[in-house]
């Protein structure tokens, strides 16, 4: 990147490089605080204790069961909240756009979604403890209404897989609403009219016209939600105090003190996360391009 910044195309006239001076502060900042730190982790993953090049750390990622479990738990939680949040967010976005609800409800929902998708971390964890914790508001409500104690009579536990997923959902489905509402607006009235004129039923219109058009943006948004949950740390840490071993919490423990007794393995663990995030972002941008063919 430094090189593209300093020497643009060699064929361009000599005064051209001066233009690039205007963006050097930005590149310098990006290199110092984004590229170098990431590069440090990548290099660390391929370095052993003596500072020599090695593949051992990366290989060990796939051998150490506790690390595989952490990745797998993170992937499951992210996938569950991406699919659940994606479906529910879509239905909500549907209800206020083409679903026929009064207009004011739409702006109320969009505003609320903007707030909720930004409401995360420690306050969100505390809010869910007050809601679904052992003495939480909803826990008490369910006990009074149905006579069921969530904690003693069911398997439910806020500090577990489902509890954390429910908590993540609070910022996941609003994000879906924010992305899907404009996409649903992009469905053209003419398509529906054309389908109806050709004798299609509502179900046929949705399954043969609307869904195929929307599918790339639905899938793309779900991938975005996946990444959103996969990188989350503060909410999980505040909620479970580090007891639920998702990958971000394991990495946090590794930063605090070398719990794996191998710094290189810690770097490799972090790099693995970046790789998964990068793959999902690439999937997102590919689907984004496909969805722009029809919706714009």
């Amino acid at each position, binding site marked *: 990147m430094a090189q593209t910044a300093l020497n643009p195309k060699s064929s361009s006239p000599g005064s051209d490089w001066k233009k690039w001076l205007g*963006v050097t502060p930005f590149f310098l900042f990006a290199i110092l*605080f984004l590229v170098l730190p990431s590069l440090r982790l990548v290099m660390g993953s391929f370095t052993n204790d003596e500072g020599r090049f090695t593949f051992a750390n990366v290989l060990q990622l796939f051998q150490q069961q506790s690390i595989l479990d952490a990745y797998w738990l993170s992937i499951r939680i992210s996938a569950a909240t991406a699919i659940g949040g994606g479906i529910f967010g879509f239905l909500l976005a549907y209800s206020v756009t083409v679903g026929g609800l009064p207009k004011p409800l739409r702006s109320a929902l969009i505003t609320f979604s903007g707030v909720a998708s930004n409401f995360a971390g420690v306050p969100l964890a505390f809010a869910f403890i007050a809601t679904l914790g052992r003495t939480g508001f909803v826990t008490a409500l369910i006990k009074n209404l149905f006579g069921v104690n969530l904690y003693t009579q069911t398997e439910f536990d806020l500090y577990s897989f489902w509890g954390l997923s429910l908590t993540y959902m609070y910022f996941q489905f609003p994000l879906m609403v924010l992305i899907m509402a404009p996409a649903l607006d992009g469905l053209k009235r003419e398509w529906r009219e054309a389908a109806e004129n050709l004798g299609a039923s509502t179900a046929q219109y949705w399954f043969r016209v609307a869904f195929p058009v929307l599918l790339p943006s639905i899938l793309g948004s779900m991938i975005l939600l996946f990444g959103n949950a996969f990188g989350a740390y503060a909410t999980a840490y*505040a909620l479970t105090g580090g007891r639920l071993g998702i990958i971000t919490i394991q990495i946090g423990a590794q930063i605090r003190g070398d719990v794996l007794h191998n710094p290189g393995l810690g770097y490799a663990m972090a790099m693995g996360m970046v790789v998964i995030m990068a793959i999902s972002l690439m999937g997102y941008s590919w689907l984004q391009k496909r969805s722009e063919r029809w919706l714009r």
Partner: protein
Amino acid sequence: MNLLARIRRIPFWSWIWFILGALYFLLPLLATFNFSLRMERDVIGFKAYIRAFEDPEFLKTFLYSNVLALMTIIASIILIVPTAYWIRLRLPEARRIVEFITLLPFVVPAIILVFGLIRIYSSPVKIPFSDITLLKPLTTFEVGTDILIVAGYMVLGLPYMYRSVDTGMRTVDVRTLTEAAQSLGANWFTIITRVILPNIRAALLSGALLTFAIVVGEVTLASFLGVPAFGPYLFLLGQHRAYEPAALSFASFLMTWVAMGLIQLFTGGQGQAAGAH
């Protein structure tokens, strides 16, 4: 008959989804608010809020986080506005690479970013391939840590700030404005501060408020870099108190609400999402 037809036209399922969504939104807030009011036995009152706001530690950390947010916003504007402006005006060929960089924070979550930052900046900054030290490790002194965390927050806010500024510049004709200002004898500094900035103030404000929402309650960077910010304070408070953290959580929800409401007001309903999850 008429009534039946009218009932039929009510979008039943839409209402169901909407009500379910509203419940999901509101129940946790209601629960938190309800809990925060019950600090004193058998009395509903704002004692937890008074207690929480009275704590000098609260004031200190909250002020500190606000200063961090302000610094991040100012530094981001100084960095991003000239860059986006220059790309629009003179260097469209840099657009792709710069946009790519602004997307990188999505690939490098906060926990990874802080990991890398700590490993790089906990050793002294040297001139490459020599032993000459330019700067002692940033993590070992206060100003150094502050610089590091502001830089980290700038990275976290980069996608949102860049996109806001770039969208803002798309709606005003940057080229014509620049030519007009130049023909009146303005220099670059004057053009950016007196012509461009005022014209994109709505976009700047929206980017600034999003950055504010990210920074004020942020925990990951703050706790690993060990700065006395509001996020880690709230987390620690939650370890040994019950009612005050609930009160502060509810208050920070209201704060997020105000920030997002202001964005809506200034950008005309274009919702955006960010956040340190």
